[in-house]
Each structure stands twice: as C-alpha cells, then as structure tokens.
C-alpha cells in the first residue's frame, strides 16, 4: 500500500474546478452536475460513488468532452496535465481521447462493434494512435490480450464479440483502453453487467494494472463494497453535488455525511455478525427536475432540521483530505467516530 500523503502531495494529473454540467430535455434545462471540485493524482485509484442520476457518468464523460449531444458544460474548468480541456478544438481532443484519457464502459457488448472481429477493432486502435503497421499492431494486440489474461489470446483475437463471454468482452475493452498507455483510465461501472465471481476477477485486473503501470484510475460504481477493496480515495455524489470526499479509511470509519452513513448501513454485512436489519434510507433520489432549495438530501435525511430545507450547505472541511456537504458535518462525524 502506498503512503496516502504522498498521493495527496503529488501533482494532480486532472483538476476539475467548479464544474457544472446541464442537460437539455423536452421540458427544460436541468443541472446534472453542479459546482464540483476535485483532483485526480498520479497513480491513484479514485472511486466516484453514486446512485443512478447522481451525475457520475456525466462528470467523467466531460473529462474528454464526451457528453451526449443534449449535455453541455455549463461552467467551470477541467485541466488535464495543466492543459485546459475546454479550450481544445476537435483535433486537440482527438489526441487526448483514447491515448491519454481512456474509458471502459459498463456494457462491453454495446461498446464493441458486433460485426467486426476483436482483432480488427484492436488493430484499428493501435494503428490510429501508435502509427504502427498491421503485423506489428497484431503482435501488440495479442500481447495486450495476454496482459488482461485472456487465455489462448492468439486464437481468441479472431473471435467476434458474441463468441466471447461477458467477462472476456470486458477484458477486451480493458485491453483496448490500456493499448496506448493512457494517463487516466476511467472505468464506468465496469462490473455492473457481470456475475459476482467474474466481477471480482475484473476488479483484480484493474487493480493489478494500476499497480503495474501506475495509470491513474477513476472507478465509477454504486457499490461501496467495491470501493473499500481497491480505491485510495472516494468521492460520494448525490443529485449532482459532491456530498462527501476523503480517503477510504476516513470515509468508511467515520463518515461525516448522513447520506454516506446511510449507504454504508444499508448494506447487509454478515461479517458484522449482527442480526439487526439493514438501515434503510427512505424515499428515492430526486429527479433532476425535482431539485428544490436547501440540501438535496434533506427530504430523506433523518437528521434534517429547518435550516436544511432552506439553505444548501457548503462542503465543510473535516480534515485536509476529508470534506462533507452537511450543515451538521462535525456532529455526524463525531457520532460516527464514537460508534
């Protein structure tokens, strides 16, 4: 395990400042992400946790300006290696996409072209980004498939996507993503569509590649358990806002936000040996068009008071690395420490 202070002290490879993203729909323009600030440091695994609609995919898609057509960066800045991403033209973006910032998406079946062999798809990426010839690219491609532990890579490379299992397809996606040695690998719910045993294999692979290549990794997930195992830091998103951020140890042992606390307690944990029923958070996350004044979690929060419905809390610092968006952050933090 690396020293976390070193991570925080090292240079951020990606810096997001006061970022807001809005989506246009038939009924109006709604904010999906609002006023988000954070950094991704060299070589770390940062987890972004949130439920559906929290804005996690929109946030990470914006790093390489890959938002869908109805999405727009409404404010803020994104710096990649000090370069302003928002100032880049299409040509500049193309240089970064895939080769410097690479993505692995949830469903490998929809991200691979079903009509083309794996070899064709991998070789295309390699030739485009590395400018190598066909036979070299094929060699590299086989090498990549071996790196992601696809057995019999030399033969499997000529398979069509449908001939591979879900786990194998996800390995191909990861191979494609690491093909150009990106600086940042963004894995958007990479295990969502997979069985538990296969999910464990894929997470182990991501963690192994991170340790080996020192690629910064941003892991998006809804499963806090996954986060505990492999990430160094975590950002919890709720309704487009950062609700809590910190090192894994801090956030899991003493959450300073009622939402994070509720999420942690809602997972049945037989290892606890406890018999009590999992804590449940009432209600459901707000839709983008339902966001009201005050704290966005207030309607579901057991600690909410008058002020929570009137005034949106800011992100309070609990420690240099730990922050929480809650009027009662200190109090919640103390009570979790005591527990």
């Amino acid at each position, binding site marked *: 395990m690396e020293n976390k202070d070193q991570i925080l002290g090292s240079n951020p490879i990606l810096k997001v400042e006061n970022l807001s993203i809005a989506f246009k729909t038939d009924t109006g323009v709604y904010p999906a992400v609002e006023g988000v600030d954070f950094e991704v440091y060299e070589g770390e695994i940062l987890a972004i946790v949130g439920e559906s609609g929290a804005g996690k995919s929109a946030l990470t898609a914006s790093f390489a300006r890959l938002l869908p057509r109805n999405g727009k960066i409404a404010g803020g800045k994104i710096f990649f290696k000090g370069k302003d991403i928002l100032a880049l033209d299409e040509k500049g973006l193309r240089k970064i996409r895939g080769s410097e910032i690479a993505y692995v998406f949830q469903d490998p079946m929809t991200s691979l072209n079903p009509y083309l062999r794996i070899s064709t798809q991998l070789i295309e990426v390699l030739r485009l980004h590395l400018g190598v010839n066909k036979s070299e690219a094929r060699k590299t491609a086989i090498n990549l498939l071996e790196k992601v532990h696809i057995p019999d890579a030399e033969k499997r490379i000529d398979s069509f996507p449908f001939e591979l*299992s879900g786990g194998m397809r996800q390995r191909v996606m990861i191979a494609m993503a690491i093909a150009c040695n990106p600086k940042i690998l963004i894995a958007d719910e990479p295990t969502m569509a997979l069985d538990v045993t296969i999910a*464990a294999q894929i997470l182990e692979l991501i963690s192994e590649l991170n340790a080996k290549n020192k690629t910064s990794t941003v892991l998006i997930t809804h499963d806090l358990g996954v986060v505990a*195992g492999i990430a160094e830091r975590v950002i919890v998103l709720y309704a487009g806002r950062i609700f809590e951020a910190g090192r894994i140890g801090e956030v899991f042992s003493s959450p300073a936000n009622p939402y994070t606390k509720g999420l942690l307690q*809602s*997972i*049945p944990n037989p290892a606890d040996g406890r018999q009590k029923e999992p*804590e449940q958070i009432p209600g*459901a996350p707000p839709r983008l068009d339902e966001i009201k004044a005050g704290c966005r979690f207030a309607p579901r929060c057991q600690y909410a008071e008058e002020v929570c419905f009137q005034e949106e809390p800011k992100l309070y610092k609990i420690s240099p690395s730990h922050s929480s968006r809650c009027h009662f952050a200190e109090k919640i933090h103390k009570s979790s420490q005591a527990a």
Partner: protein
Amino acid sequence: MSESSGNTDRGQSGRLDRPVLEISGLKVYFNSGKNFVRAVDGISLEIGRGEVLGLVGESGCGKSTLARAALKLIRPNSGSIKICGEEVSRLSERQMRQFRKKIQIVFQDPSSSLDPRMKVRDIISEPIVNFQLARRKSRDLEAAVENLLKSVGLDPSFADRYPNEFSGGQRQRIGIARALAPKPEIIIADEPISALDVSIQAQILNLLNRLRRQSGIALMFISHDLRAVEYISDRIAVMYLGRLVEIGPSKRVYSEPLMPYTRGLISALPVPDPEVERKRKRYILQGETPSPADPPSGCRFRTRCQFAIEECSKREPTLSEIRPSHFAACLRINAENPDIEENQKRGLGAIGA
C-alpha cells in the same frame, strides 16, 4: 428461524409440517439445435411453511428456470413439483390457473413487469378478481387494494396513478403488492433487488422480511447477492450448472461454507469495510462457468476447483449431509472430514459420496 436439530427424517428443511413447495428430481432441458442445454438437471428441494429459502448461483446456473418450472410456466422434462402437497403436473391448464393463487412471483425489473397502460388499482385488482376473491367494483375490492398498498408502504391515494409515475423502488413495491393480492402460500422473488439503486435495495429487503414475518408467507429469494440472501433467508441453496451443490442453514452456509464454489461466491463479494477488505484472504474463482450444453464430466465444478483430483472427473458427487442439515456435493469431504483445505493438506483423496 428454522435452525433444526438435524433429524434427517424430518426432511431437508428439518420441519415436521408439509412443505409448501416440494421439488424432486426436476429436470428441464432446452433444445439448442445440436444438443440439449441442461438448465436444471436433477434438483430436489423443499420449502417449508413460512420458510425463506435463498437460491444463489451465477447467471446461467438455472436459478430462473427452476423458478419458472415451479410456477409451471415451463414444462419440466421429468421430476415432480408439489405445491401444498398437490402434484402440479397432474393439474390441467385450467385447474393450474386457479391453483396459481398459491404461488406468485416478483420479477427483477419492475418497469417491464407492470403494464404501463394500467392504473396501479387495476394492476393489483386483477389477480383478486381473477381468483374470485372479490367482485369487480365491489367495496371489498377497494378495501383490499387499499390494504395491500399500505402493507407495501405506499399511500393508498397512489391507486389511480400509472406505473411510470413511480420510482424503481416504488414500482417494485407495486409488484410485491400484486404478488400478495391473491394471498399466496409462497412467493418466488427472482432477483427482486438487483435492478434497484443501493439506497432502495435495503427498503425492499426489509419490506420482504417484514411481510414474511407478519403473514407467515414462504419465500424463494433468488439473488446473486449473498449478503442480501444471508440476511433474509433461513436456508441457502447454491446452484452450479443446473445442479444443487450445497444447501443448509443460512448462517452456516455463509460463515462455514463446505463447497469451494460457495467459498468463491462469498469471497467474490466485496465487504464495505476497508480494514476487513484489505486483510481478508480473498479466494478468487478463476475461469468461467462452462456451457450448460456441454457440462464437464464428473463434478461439474472441477474445471474451476483448486482442489480437484482425478476422481472428480470420473464420478459425479451427490448431495450428502456433511453437518446437521447442511448438505454438500463434493467428493473431497465427508461428515468426518468436512474441511476440504484440511483434507488437501492431509492428502485425503475421494472420500465423499
């Protein structure tokens, strides 16, 4: 909870009263052109009155096929299914339709399992009217719908809304209310929480648990999430490639799994505690499930099992009682030597049944 004393003639679940669901020797094969996909290949299990049985396994192991066969939604190739003592294969389609009020199902995806053009009131009324438990437009029906909505934690005023006006969690509550409507003896819940947001999963899990405690309804809870299964179930059954490989009291199966496969399933689940997670011994299952159209010879799990020996490819193990009420199908363990790792160290060969 049905922690039993291990008296074998009381049957698998260790209960004296007649089981709500008895499945024996069930086989369901699908024709896949060249050969048969053995989705369910000789499964016997029973669920007692008011019992919750958790059914786990990876996709393609036959969990849902088993559930569908139990509801007689698909015809098994052989074997028997008894619901409340009645052999369902002997019932005609017409008789079965009436009989289905005893066994109901909750589906995984609450959006696709509710008719978008029906009001919640009509969705929940339909089974009540069909099973002639109340007349259409009667006051009894009104009251029943209201009570059902309340029992699943929804406001009765929601009755006149359409499914698309609800969130995923609320829709799943509507699905549960519909399943409860004909007052069934058993509900089969096929991955009822896996399509829901994390903060909603606990709500549905707690709701199902409360309902079974209040109404004494039996439940077959199918899931790949062993944490949830462990929490809600009295017993856990583990399936692999169409076969039952382990079944026993839920706490025991979770904390002292006998089969290497069960260990792998449990180990694959991340624990939401960084300290535990970093220290614990992970036991990651290598490889993937082989095709059910062409399962390995002998023990079907052997291709992924680190303890497999030659004998495992020759003989298929049968479920046998290793610990009281705790059964496993593995050649490398028996009642005297239940710890496979220990047996490996001691160099014990094929000792199981």
